[in-house]
């Protein structure tokens, strides 16, 4: 056993390194192949731009693109905050009263299953454009927060709940010391999904809105570049959107890890 330990430790470290090295290698190989195909076949940039052209476009158009990125990120952030606060608050309300839950939950589901791309035009009629876009991001992102928080609040250990009852805990104490901490891993899981979804909601709404101007987001940039056959810029904007999504997910995963690292299974190493 002890003789084998260093081997397994070494191989597991190598395995962990491979988890990062392999996808990067696949990515690099893909880029090289793409670049080669475009160059050898002489494909024009308005059909398929080479990666190098996309990067150049990104640098050249940075002034326009960065402004669009900021707009989209702001919308995403507003939608995400609204979804987080709304989802958690509604779940707490549901937890306090079964009647409220029975009355409202079906509508939360309806809101979730109706495609946001179909709701967006209606919202754009009734609401100011910026508000409508944020509301779209909210609609897409709030359901996972609501359903995860509800699940978390209902997953409280029965014996612990009995213990709180035994010591005459008030509803506020039970919420603060028992239900919210017990639900925290679920809430963080919900927020992690909501982060990505609010970006999707923002993009969908921007495309539906389709209005030009200084404050227009990245999605509008993609749509507009499409009309103009400015394919390299489409790719550049798409790249930025992808990166934004990855960063949002990474930040939320990091927050979740930092909050849970001392106690929750999901944040502990496998060896423990």
């Amino acid at each position, binding site marked *: 056993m002890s003789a084998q330990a260093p081997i397994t430790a070494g191989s597991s470290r190598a395995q962990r390194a491979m988890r990062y090295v392999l996808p990067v290698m696949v990515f690099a190989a893909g880029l090289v192949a793409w670049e080669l195909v475009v160059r050898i076949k002489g494909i024009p940039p308005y059909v398929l731009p080479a990666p190098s052209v996309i990067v150049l476009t990104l640098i050249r158009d940075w002034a326009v693109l960065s402004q669009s990125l900021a707009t989209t990120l702001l919308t995403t952030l507003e939608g995400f905050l609204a979804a987080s606060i709304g989802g958690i608050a509604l779940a707490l309300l549901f937890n306090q009263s079964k009647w409220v839950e029975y009355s409202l939950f079906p509508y939360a589901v309806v809101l979730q299953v109706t495609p946001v791309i179909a709701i967006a035009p209606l919202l754009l009629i009734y609401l100011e454009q910026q508000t409508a876009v944020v509301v779209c991001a909210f609609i897409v992102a709030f359901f996972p927060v609501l359903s995860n928080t509800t699940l978390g609040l209902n997953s409280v250990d029965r014996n612990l709940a*009995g*213990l709180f*009852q*035994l010591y*005459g805990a008030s509803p506020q104490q039970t919420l603060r*010391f028992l239900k919210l901490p017990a639900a925290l891993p679920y809430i963080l899981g919900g927020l992690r999904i909501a982060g990505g979804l609010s970006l999707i909601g923002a993009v969908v709404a921007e495309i539906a809105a389709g209005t030009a101007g200084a404050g227009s987001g990245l999605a509008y940039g993609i749509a507009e570049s499409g009309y103009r056959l400015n394919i390299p810029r489409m790719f550049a904007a798409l790249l930025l959107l992808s990166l934004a999504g990855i960063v949002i997910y990474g930040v939320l995963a990091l927050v979740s890890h930092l909050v849970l690292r001392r*106690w929750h299974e999901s944040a502990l190493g496998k060896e423990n």
Partner: protein
Amino acid sequence: MVERNTPPTVEASLTALAVSLRGVTKAYDNGITALGPFDLTVRKGEFISLLGPSGCGKSTALRIIAGLSAPSSGTVRVARHKGSVQPGHVQPGHVQPGHVQPGHGIGFVFQEPTLMPWTSVRENVRLPLRLARVPKADARARADEALASVGLADFADAYPRELSGGMKMRVSLARALVTDPEILLMDEPFAALDEITRFRLNNDLLALWRRLGKTVIFVTHSVFESVYLSQRVVVMTARPGRIQADIRIETVEPRGEEFRTSAAYSDYCRRVSAALAPSYSGQSTL
């Protein structure tokens, strides 16, 4: 049979009692009667075991005493504060669990350690005091004291996941003791532990009981554990749980490891096993 206004004379005669159950039954909504009618009196400072086959309602009885579950009929009296017995805190029939005012004079140890994984051992032990709004400095001192009494003074800042099963159970015991309760209710607390750990905890529990003089009601399905620990073994029948036998265990106190191997011990174990046998007759051993 429900008594609400007990005459003062009866009240006075009950002062030496910690717990008194009269004709207590528990039926679930699906019509299954889990318990009773069940009568039990426990004197202050007594260590008794409730012993019976699984599903005989011994945990139900414990939860009723704790006020975590309402009886379907009968009266429950529990001494809350030193020297007094208050009228039944649980009235049958129309009690909503949330409306029961459970006593702070009760400490409860569950079958699992039932610790909050998100906070330190000290905070877990401090919880009952925190819920009672005891000032933080005082509560911390008392939590540390309770931890020291179960031999875990050095682990106050650890998290529950960093402890072994036996240590978690000790934390759970410290938490039950931190309010200095009159009565300690224990629901098969050591059932999930290995034998060596269980024996050690048995001895530590006996030492604590001798030192603190608490009333202990200990639920177990182990004949050997019940005889070793308690002054009285109350043997229960299979569902619905009633009292089959009430056997007093008398030996030289304080008990120690030598009692475990004595002839008297095996005699008692044989008697208790014999009392328990009818509960299993006609039942599949599975």
